[in-house]
């Protein structure tokens, strides 16, 4: 009996600690939501206020009215959508090629792609800008999209999954006379569907948040995505924190929603970054 009491005590203690941790971790997020409903005076009141006295939906309306928020939002959706689409199109194709075929140059390609995982984006920022500038792509959608059409990590993730597709399936289809492209689209892709969802999530997370490249590769307002839009907003309206937070809630929401909806797959995907299952 005392032993089970001790265990119960431990469980309760553990729950209290976990709960405290959860509240601590969520504090900044909750503060953002709360501040997005406050008036400017409430935010600036030195008497620290946790909750707004009433829900000021007006902040959200003002965010859309005061700056090009709709534009940033649709730019973000379009650019991110296109990048996710291109990654889904190319990564499995290359992964398939690396996993199931043998040709001259394959090992070099593989080594090189692996090595690019280690290259920080900042280190090639300037030449990349020069290339995009040379192509006349500065301040265009293709300039924001094409440099992210593939990722080394995505290609490797696909390779790892496709390697586990049995060769027998592919050979059986070949014997039955299926064309190679048909094999790819009708056998390989359906078999790795879960991996494709994982890939889509990872690419979405990375591109929704891309900052430095958008900052460098856009000029003026028309092509800015949400992160840059928000940063510029902060420069323009230094003290309108309530609007900043309302905009932040809108910018953060899509990713949180995707995460909550696809939680398990999402976490698996993030853990999959380590190449572990």
């Amino acid at each position, binding site marked *: 009996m005392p032993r089970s009491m001790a265990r119960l005590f431990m*469980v309760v203690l553990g*729950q209290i600690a976990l709960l405290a941790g959860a509240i601590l971790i969520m504090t900044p997020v909750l503060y953002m939501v709360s501040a997005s409903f406050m008036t400017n005076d409430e935010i600036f009141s030195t008497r620290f206020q946790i909750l707004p006295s009433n829900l000021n939906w007006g902040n959200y309306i003002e965010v859309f009215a005061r700056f090009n928020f709709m534009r940033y939002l649709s730019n973000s959706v379009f650019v991110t959508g296109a990048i996710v689409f291109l990654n889904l199109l190319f990564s499995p194709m290359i992964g398939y090629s690396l996993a199931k*075929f043998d040709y001259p140059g394959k090992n070099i390609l593989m080594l090189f792609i692996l090595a690019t995982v280690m290259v920080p984006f900042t280190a090639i920022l300037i030449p990349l800008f020069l290339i995009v500038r040379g192509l006349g792509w500065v301040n265009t959608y293709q300039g924001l999209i094409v440099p992210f059409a593939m990722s*080394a990590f995505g290609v490797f993730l696909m390779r790892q999954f496709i390697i586990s597709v049995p060769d027998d399936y592919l050979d059986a289809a070949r014997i039955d006379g299926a064309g190679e492209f048909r094999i790819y689209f009708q056998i390989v892709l359906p078999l790795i569907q879960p991996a494709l969802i994982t890939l889509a999530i990872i690419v979405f997370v990375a591109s929704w948040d891309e900052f430095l490249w958008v900052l460098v590769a856009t000029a003026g307002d028309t092509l800015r995505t949400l992160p840059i839009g928000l940063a510029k907003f902060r420069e323009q309206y230094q003290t309108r924190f309530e609007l900043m937070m309302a905009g932040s809630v809108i910018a953060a929401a899509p990713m949180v929603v995707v995460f909550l909806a696809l939680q398990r797959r999402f976490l698996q995907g993030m853990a999959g970054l380590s190449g572990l299952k």
Partner: protein
Amino acid sequence: MFGTPQEQSLRHQSFHQRRRGILGNTLEARKKRLGLVFALPAFLFFGAFYLYPLFQTFYVSLFSWGLLDDPKFLGMTNYSRLFTDKEFINSVWVSFLYSFGVVIPIWFIALGLALIFNRTFPGRQAYLTVYYIPAVISLTVWSLIWLLMYNPTFGIFSVAARALGITGLRMLDDPSTAMPAMIILSIWKGTPVYMVIFIAGLRAIPNDYYEAAQIDGANAAQCLLYITLPLLRPVFLYVMVISIIEAFKVFTPMYILTNGGPGSATRVLSMFIFQNGFQYLKMGYASAASVIFLLILLALAIIQFRLLRFQQND
């Protein structure tokens, strides 16, 4: 020619195969061609957007170039200037300070949380979800939130300090607190991803080991020390390499919260490269800094691989 006609034709075929490589009409050659066709986009893409830029970085670093004028060849002058540039040396130092200030706590906290989440307890999935939330908040948004939290008038830190009788705490305006401010928000945001990676690593350890250890009378601490941690070594290596690269890449929080200041207290390498390249339009100088940046990360990666492989062998 010797041998039967059949042998001859076989020899003939293999000769052709060898000579014609990927051009023949055999299944092997067809498959080779096909593999290349599927890989072609990768050759083009990684060639154009990774390999070429890598060379280009080095090439441009040999010039003085303001983007709008003609490039002037300088040789290695940009590099010798960098090594005497106090701002650059400071940036390297600040990057190291920031990166290790962020990643070392992250390793411990993430591993600790992973060990907790590796057990079963009521509400585990719900807690995991909540603990992961900071990782899915956009970094720009995250930085803006902390801009509020660090505000000297109403920010939570200054308010708490005032409650404790310390007045005038200005986290972002004081060189001695600006860097810790950046580090705190980065640890907060960065930990969950590595926690999840550690959890996956812990899950991959077969239960048999623990069962066998239990039969031998090992306690929890011994299990952790002699089973879990050694078997987690590859995951450690991965987490170390990736977290350090990620930390060195940092840009957004500095851009939003401090713009590298106060003074140069938070001017990390990315900020240095961005400012020199795109604000002062010194393409060559910024490229030289990029090359050094790349070399630093390469050296760090090699050290880590050596370190962990050495441990594995002993």
